[in-house]
């Protein structure tokens, strides 16, 4: 451990809940720069709770544990400060903001995260158009209110567009693959591959093997009842496909490395 590089994201003994109910019960997870991890787990096991806690949703209470991003304590920071430190969450259910166009929204976000000075209006627009084209998002979408009336798949692409524009170093994708058609899935994967690299970390939360074929993970973790019940290599995904989650609940299934 002593010579290992400092992990990019480090979660230790995290206990958290919402509405007085504890959902995460001592969760440990480490993701190093350059790594892609997958997080799988049954409905209600706490995956979105983890996402929200990482991002700092004010409704979620943290009871114990630590979360660090590049060594810095995240739990003390507001959501906007976390975003500015390079954390990005692609939401499972992105909300619509009526009357606020994608361009307007992203301009404000990019200015906030990357700094007003570093983004000039013309350069921003050029980059936005290029990125939208890369994600096969039609230009008309850029002038529509963000997520308003967007289809499920369109919202997910919009999350990836935001991710690429904000250039985060730690990305959490909460079921970004759910509800995507085959082409959209490839587009999303292409977007994630663009961000992934030696200095970035990626956590892909998913129920399906499909997206992991496009974004092969270095590590796979299984979340059960608020804890990582098992971690392993990519072969764990195939095993889950075959066996479901029940075998992990058996007492013999002790968590492994």
């Amino acid at each position, binding site marked *: 451990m002593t010579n290992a590089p400092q992990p990019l994201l480090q979660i230790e003994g995290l206990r958290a809940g919402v509405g007085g109910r504890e959902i995460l019960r001592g969760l440990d997870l480490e993701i190093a720069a350059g790594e892609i991890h997958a997080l799988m787990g049954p409905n209600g096991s706490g995956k979105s709770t983890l996402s929200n806690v990482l*991002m*700092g*949703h*004010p*409704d979620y209470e943290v009871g114990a544990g630590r979360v660090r991003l590049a060594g810095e304590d995240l739990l003390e920071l*507001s*959501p*906007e400060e*976390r*975003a*500015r430190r390079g954390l990005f*969450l692609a*939401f499972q259910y*992105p*909300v619509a*903001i*009526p*009357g*606020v166009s994608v361009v*307007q*929204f992203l301009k*404000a*976000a990019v200015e*906030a*995260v990357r700094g007003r000075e570093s983004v000039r209006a013309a350069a921003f627009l050029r980059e936005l158009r290029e990125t939208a084209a890369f994600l096969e998002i039609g230009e008309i979408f850029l002038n529509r*209110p963000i997520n308003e009336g967007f289809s499920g798949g369109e919202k997910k692409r919009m999350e990836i567009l*935001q991710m690429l524009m*904000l250039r985060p170093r730690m990305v959490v994708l909460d079921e970004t693959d759910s509800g995507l058609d085959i082409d959209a899935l490839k587009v999303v994967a292409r977007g994630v591959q663009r961000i992934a690299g030696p200095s970035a970390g990626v956590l892909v939360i998913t129920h399906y093997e499909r997206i992991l074929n496009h974004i092969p993970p270095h590590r796979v973790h299984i979340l059960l009842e608020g804890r990582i019940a098992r971690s392993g290599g990519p072969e764990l995904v195939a095993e889950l496909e075959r066996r479901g989650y029940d075998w992990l609940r058996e007492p013999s299934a002790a968590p492994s490395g």
Partner: protein
Amino acid sequence: MSKAWNTVSEAPAIPLPPGTANEPPALSARRSEAARRAADLPPPAPHDEEWRRTDPARFPLDAWPPVHLEPRPPRPADADPLDEFFDVVIEMDGSGWSVRDRGGVTQSGRIAVLSLAEAAERHPDAVETLWTLEPAVRPRDRHEWAAMAAAAGVFIRVEPGAEFARGVLVRVRQPAGRWFCPLTMLDVSERSTLHVVSAILSEPGDGLAAETVRYRVGAGGRLRLARLQLCAGGPSQMEFVHGRLSEDAQLDAVSVHLGGAAVRSRVGAEAAGRGAGVRIGGLLLAAGTEQADQQTVQIHSAPDTTSDLLFKAAVRDRARSVYRGLIAAHRGAVRIAAYQKNQNLILNEGARVDSLPGLRIDADDLTCTHGATIGSLDPDELFYLRSRGLPESVARRLILEGFFEEIVSRLAMPALRDVVRRHLAERMDAPA
């Protein structure tokens, strides 16, 4: 000083302006009548339904000396960057009113910009019609009559078939410490188009301003009317806007209220000719201890008419807003479609909104929809924006801008939208 209205001395005092002696007799008679009607009506009492939610003490009729708006030459100092978007710029303030015909359009004889007194001589029928226009479902109250008695200002007439899309800017600067009653009469002839923007600003201080706008739109004519009130810290203000549309005429009106210690607004339209269409949008952001009371009436007195009204209000600090809407469909006004919606955002505890939609339907075979919502900023929307790096204050402002965008986008001119957005942002960012 021998005018009739100056002799109604036993009645409660209705302040009347000096200097109207040279007006045509018909106009003087109308003023006297208005003063008498005002004097005959009882002063508002706090238990009146009309005044239950706004404080009558903020609208004293007898506390301030009246101003009579006489024409005066334009002053170079009045020029403003917004002017370049208009053919005609009219200024009204405590020292009178002036007109600058930047495009030379009045030379053509297709548009006339006259003082009320001139108009009473040259277009007596039009002035008479516009003066007497009032919604039967909501007769004038004491303040409105008093405002008519003291009203002076501008009459704009567009000849048939003429188009003035670039339009007219009316800039009103409310003087403090006065009873100030600017008047705008708009006579839009058949098949003509007129675009009027009024920007109402005020001097800091107290006083009372009551603006009257009367319009009529002839068959197939079109009126775009945008009104911006930017009067934070200024005198209490009232506005009385009403007009009538003939066959296939269209009104597209937008009103924006961004500040005013006390605001009473009455906006109405009557679709009086078959096929007439009314579209009215409103936006209000009240802060501090401001009180806003807005009432709208949509009257359908002819078949196949439509009306579409959307009023949005947001309140912060300890401000309050009251909205009362009325759709009235007269007998025989069949196959009409009327829509009225009032949406409200309460930005913090302590601010307050009341919304009272109303219907009075004597016709059948119609579609009539109305509704009101009152809510606060959605925490999930806030979190979404913050998760993208926006500080909470910016996130709140963006959501609010989005809330109002539906109205702002109805303004025809981009320059005007920018003015509104800038003022919105300032009001949002101002400390409580």
